[in-house]
C-alpha cells in the first residue's frame, strides 16, 4: 500500500520535472530563434548564393523591405531566392519592419515565383518572421488575400521548391513562404500558429504565461518533425547558429543541396502533385473506422 503510494508520488514528481525541463528547453529555443545576432536571410544568401542579383518591388506599388529576393547560383544552378529579412541592428530592423511583411512583400514573392516558373528555376525560400505586419494599411491593402494567394502560387509551382526555417516561423506570415516540396528547419528555429505571448494573452489571459504557452504549442524542430510539419532538422553549432555562422551555413547548404538533388529526379507535374499530397496529409484526426 505504502509502496504503491510512494511510487505514484515519485511518478508524479518525475512527470512534473519532465514538464519543467521541456518548458525550459522550449523557452530557450524561442530565445535563440529570436537572438538578434542570429544569421538572417541576408547572411545565408551571402554564404550560399553566388552572384546574387537582388530584384526589388511588387510591380504594383512598392518594394517591401521585409521580404528580399532575387536570382543567383546555388551549386551550379541558377535559382530564385525569396526570404523574410529581419535585420540585426536596430536601424536594419526598422528598415525591414522586423521581418513583418506587408501585402507588397507577399506580392513581390508571388511575382518572383512566377519568374521562376517561367524560366524553370528552382525556388529557395528562407522563413524568419514574427508574423505578417499587423497594421491598418496592410490590412486594408489586402493582407489576408496576399497571404492566401502566395500560398496558392507556391502550391502551383512545378519547379523544385525548398523552404528553410532559420529563425521565427510566425503564423500565416511565415507559412506564406513555406508551401514547399521540402520544409527544412534549423534546430533552434520555431514554427507556430501564434506567438507564445499572443497565445498566453488569449488562453491564459496574461502574456506572462508565454513560457507555458510556448511549451504547449510545441514549436521546435524536434517536436514538429514527428508531426510531418517539417521534413528535416538541420543541426546547428553548439549554442546556436550565431556562435559559428559559417558552420551553420554549411549545414544549411548541405541540407538544401540534398533536397534539391532529390527533387530534380521528379517530373514537374509529379513534383506539384507530391507537394499537394504532402499538405493534404497534414493534420491528425480519428474516427475513420466508424463508417463502413
Amino acid at each position: 500500500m505504502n509502496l504503491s503510494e510512494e511510487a505514484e508520488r515519485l511518478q508524479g514528481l518525475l512527470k512534473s520535472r519532465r514538464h519543467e525541463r521541456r518548458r525550459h528547453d522550449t523557452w530557450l529555443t524561442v530565445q535563440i530563434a529570436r537572438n538578434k545576432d542570429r544569421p538572417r536571410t541576408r547572411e545565408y544568401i551571402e554564404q550560399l548564393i553566388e552572384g546574387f542579383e537582388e530584384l526589388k518591388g511588387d510591380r504594383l506599388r512598392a518594394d517591401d523591405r521585409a521580404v528580399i529576393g532575387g536570382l543567383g547560383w546555388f551549386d551550379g544552378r541558377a535559382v530564385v531566392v525569396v526570404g523574410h529579412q529581419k535585420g540585426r541592428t536596430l536601424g536594419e530592423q526598422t528598415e525591414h519592419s522586423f521581418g513583418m511583411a506587408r501585402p507588397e512583400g507577399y506580392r513581390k514573392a508571388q511575382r518572383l515565383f512566377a519568374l521562376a516558373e517561367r524560366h524553370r528555376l528552382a525556388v529557395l525560400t528562407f522563413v524568419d518572421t514574427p508574423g505578417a505586419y499587423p497594421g491598418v494599411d496592410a490590412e486594408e491593402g489586402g493582407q489576408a488575400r496576399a497571404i492566401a494567394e502566395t500560398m496558392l502560387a507556391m502550391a502551383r509551382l512545378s519547379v523544385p521548391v525548398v523552404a528553410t526555417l532559420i529563425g521565427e516561423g510566425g503564423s500565416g506570415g511565415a507559412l506564406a513562404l513555406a508551401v514547399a516540396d521540402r520544409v527544412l528547419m534549423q534546430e533552434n528555429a520555431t514554427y507556430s500558429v501564434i506567438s507564445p505571448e499572443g497565445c498566453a494573452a488569449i488562453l491564459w489571459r496574461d502574456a506572462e504565461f508565454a513560457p507555458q504557452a510556448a511549451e504547449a504549442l510545441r514549436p521546435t524542430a524536434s517536436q514538429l518533425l514527428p508531426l510531418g510539419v517539417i521534413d528535416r532538422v538541420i543541426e546547428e553549432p553548439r549554442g546556436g547558429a550565431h556562435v559559428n555562422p559559417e558552420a551553420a551555413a554549411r549545414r544549411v547548404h548541405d541540407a538544401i543541396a540534398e533536397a534539391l538533388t532529390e527533387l530534380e529526379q521528379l517530373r514537374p507535374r509529379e513534383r506539384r502533385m507530391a507537394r499537394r499530397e504532402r499538405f493534404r496529409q497534414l493534420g491528425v484526426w480519428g474516427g475513420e473506422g466508424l463508417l463502413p
Partner: protein
Amino acid sequence: MTVTVEIARRGTPQAPRRWVCPKCAAEHDPAAVKENLSVCPACGYHQRIGARERIAQLADEGTFVEYWSHLRTLDPLDFVDLEPYPERVREAQGASGLTEALVAGPAAIGGTPCVLAVMDFGFMGGSMGSVVGEKLWRAAAIAADEGRPLVAVASSGGARMQEGALSLMQMAKTTCAVDVLNDARVPFVAVMADPCTGGVVASFVSLADICVAEPGALLYFSGPRVIAQTTREQLPDDFGGAERNLALGHVDAVVPRAELKDRVANYLRLLKGGGQPDGLERRGSSRSRNGRTRRLARATSARVAAAFKNPGREPVGGSGTAPGSPEEPAP
C-alpha cells in the same frame, strides 16, 4: 432539441421572453426574429447563426446530407492551458450539438446541386483545426470529382491554437483544396459571415471565385487589439467592416441574409452556364482547330520574314495588326 423545449417550458410561467437587438435595442418576439432569418426586423442587424440554421436557410429543403461527421478531433499535442483541449472540445460539442466547427455535405441551392460547407462560430470560435481542414478538403474533393460547385460559409476566429502548427498547416491544406477545385474548373463561392478573421480569411475563403459578405460582418487577418498592441495605430471606426471591405475592393458584394440564397443560386447558375470549350484539348483531339492554328502560324512567320527582308515596309512586333496590313481585317 430537448434543450430548446426545456428553455421554453421554464419561460412560460413568466412573461414571454423578448429578444433585444444589441444594435438598436428594439424588443421583438424571438420567434418573429427567427422567422426573419435571425435579422432584427427594426434595424436589419444580422445576428450570428449556427451551422444548422444557416444550412436550413441556404439549402433547398431536404437536400442537405451531412457527410464526415464521424471524423473525431484528437489532441496530438496534449495541449493544456487553463483546461485540457479534449475538455474544451467536449464542452463545445455539448453546447452546439455538432461534432466540429464545420458541417459539410452535398446539397442543392436553388435547384443547383453543390457541396455546402458551413462553419459554426459557436464551436470554439469556429476555429480551424485538423478535422475542419480535412472536412473542407473532402468537400472540395467530391465537388471537383462530381463537378458540383463548392459553397462555403465562413465564420471563424482563425486557426485553432490548441493544435499548434498542425492547425497552421490547415491553411496550406485548404489552399491546396482550392487548387484542386481550380484545376477541375469547379466554381467556388464563399460567404463571409461575422466574424471572419485570421487563418480562415487568409486561406481558402479569400481564394473563392466569388466572395460575398453579410452586412456588418467583421473581416480581417490581424484584429484591432493586435494592431493596437504592435503598431499603436489609430484604427478607423468601421475597421474591418463588410461595407468598408466592399469599398476597398476586397469583396464582390455585401448581401443581406434575405437575398443570400437567391444570389448564391444565381452565381452558381452563371458560373456553370458558360458552356465554352476549355481550351485544353490534347493534340489531335480537334484536328480542324489545330490545322487552323498551323495555318495561322505559317502566315504569321511569312509576314515576319517579309518584314525582315523589307525593313520599314511593315512594323515587326505587337500583334501584327498594323493599319493596312493585308492579312488582318481592321477590328
